[in-house]
């Protein structure tokens, strides 16, 4: 097995399928509409992509440890609402409001983790409850009205999160660097560190991990917190970019994020996860959303394609898995 060629090893990687799909997608959209790869379109797509992508990175870590989080979309809407409510009411400076929103997000993640690991309720039910609680609180605080965020213009924090600059005619948002940086860090943590080994073991066989002295519960709680913090962070980035913090934003994101993660090759049941795959998965879905509109398919048909991609990729993963087990 060690003598296999580089190409063979490359093809047997779990990230290979998603990579082929992404390239195919790009080729098809580009051949139908050359504007698809225009500088403006790429830069627009990237700015959207990053926001869901940040959540997907956290979700990848969490799903590798065998849990998932349905409340990410609610936290995505809730964190900016909190931040801007505090700031607009004049209760705190922008920095302090930002910190409060992050701490509250972390607390939501901790609560999810506490219910899952201590009370031993499945993460599906815990985070479904949390989805409603957090969304409800956001709506209640704001009476359902969006909070204005345009007063942030020029503030250093706003520039650090979503400030933009041009490389030639290519517009780059600062949020892209956050995404790339966090992806690299989490990718390293998952594959190259001791903690990464614990995360994979916790998702693969929690009992044997526990028997070897791995603190499975603490690992999972930390990952719930990471996911919630990234969701809140991404919500705040989005609120500044779109100049409004809407308590309803992020509705339905949880399923799209989970779809991105599994398309990339992370197992829904835990034990196996890949950050590179998730980055590919994020692009596959976002490029699909963007490309469909550009080539003239009605935007309402988007879900048909997403559903088909999920089914197709899962079939592929399952077939490859079985062939692998059979020893070929």
């Amino acid at each position: 097995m060690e003598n296999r060629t580089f190409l063979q090893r490359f093809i047997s990687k779990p990230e290979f399928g998603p990579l082929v799909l992404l390239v195919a997608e790009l080729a098809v959209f580009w051949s139908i509409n050359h504007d698809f790869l225009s500088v403006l379109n790429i830069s627009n797509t990237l700015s959207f992509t990053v926001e869901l992508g940040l959540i997907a990175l956290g979700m990848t870590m969490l799903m590798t440890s065998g849990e998932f989080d349905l409340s990410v979309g609610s936290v995505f809407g809730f964190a900016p609402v909190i931040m801007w409510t505090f700031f607009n009411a004049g209760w705190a400076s922008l920095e302090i409001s930002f910190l409060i929103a992050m701490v509250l997000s972390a607390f939501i993640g901790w609560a999810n983790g506490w219910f899952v690991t201590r009370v031993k309720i499945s993460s599906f039910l815990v985070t479904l409850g949390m989805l409603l609680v957090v969304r409800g609180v956001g709506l209640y605080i704001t009476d359902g009205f969006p909070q204005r965020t345009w007063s942030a213009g020029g503030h250093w924090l706003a520039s650090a999160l979503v400030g933009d600059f041009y490389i030639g005619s290519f517009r780059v948002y600062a949020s892209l660097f956050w995404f790339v940086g966090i992806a690299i860090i989490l990718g390293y943590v998952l594959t190259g560190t001791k903690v990464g080994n614990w995360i994979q073991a916790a998702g693969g066989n929690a009992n044997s991990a526990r028997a070897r002295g791995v603190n499975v519960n603490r690992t999972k709680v930390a990952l719930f917190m990471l996911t919630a913090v990234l969701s809140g962070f991404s919500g705040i980035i989005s609120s500044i970019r779109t100049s409004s913090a809407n308590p309803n934003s992020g509705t339905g994101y949880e399923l799209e994020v989970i779809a991105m993660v599994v398309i990339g090759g992370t197992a829904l049941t835990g034990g196996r996860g890949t950050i590179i795959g998730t980055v590919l998965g994020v692009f596959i879905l976002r490029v699909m959303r963007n490309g469909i509109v550009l080539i003239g398919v009605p935007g309402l048909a988007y879900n048909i394609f997403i559903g088909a991609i999920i089914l197709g990729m899962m079939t592929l993963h399952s077939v490859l898995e079985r062939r692998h087990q059979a020893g070929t």
Partner: protein
Amino acid sequence: MATELIRMEHVNKFYGRVQALEDVNLVVNESEIVGLLGDNGAGKSTLIKVLSGAVPSSSGKISVRGKEVTIRSTTDAIAQGIETIYQDSALVTQLSIARNLFLGREPVKGPKFFNRLDQEKMNEVARELLARVGISKNIPPNTPIGSLSGGERQAVAIARAMHFDSDLIILDEPTNNLGVAETQGVLRFVRNARDSGHSCIFIAHNIHHVFQVVDRIVVMRRGRIVADDINPKTTSVEEVERVITGEELVVARG
């Protein structure tokens, strides 16, 4: 006189109203291999579970090297140097051989902050260990456990116990479902373990395997230890079988 490693005194275990262990007393000395025999339901598994921390005992005392200890979890047991290898060995099937071997005790290199796994060292040790437990095939240490055979998995679990220098290695039916060469590997490992100063409790249905390696045979019947100093060198397999089934009682009464 050999030094005492483990002593269990007056250990009882109830599952509800069912008594699975009744006043069990067992001593294992250092560098000693004890074969634990008994029919199905005799209490072997329960005894092992109590000693390995999988279930708590209802009453009784366990001492390691003369010091009384409480074993409430498998983690406690491992901390006391007691390692158990079950039939379906406790490995994470998605992880590689090397990652399983070092799970929970991964070597780290570089600055502590980066928490970086020393993968070269893990792979190197894994390769060495696999050869020692008798896997002659050249299996790369980054192969996931999921694609190994039952015997190979057993060998990985054994390799792990060897590497981390457990004082007492409990092997629960280690030769079940194993091929001939793999079984020989396991038996050879048990002999090596004694030579390097480890103790073993060896449980197997196959009495012949037990006779090949153990120093002393302990027999359980209905939750009690009915014989604890059978010498396999001076006793025949048939005599031991009679002790296991309890036939000698019938003979004595008749």
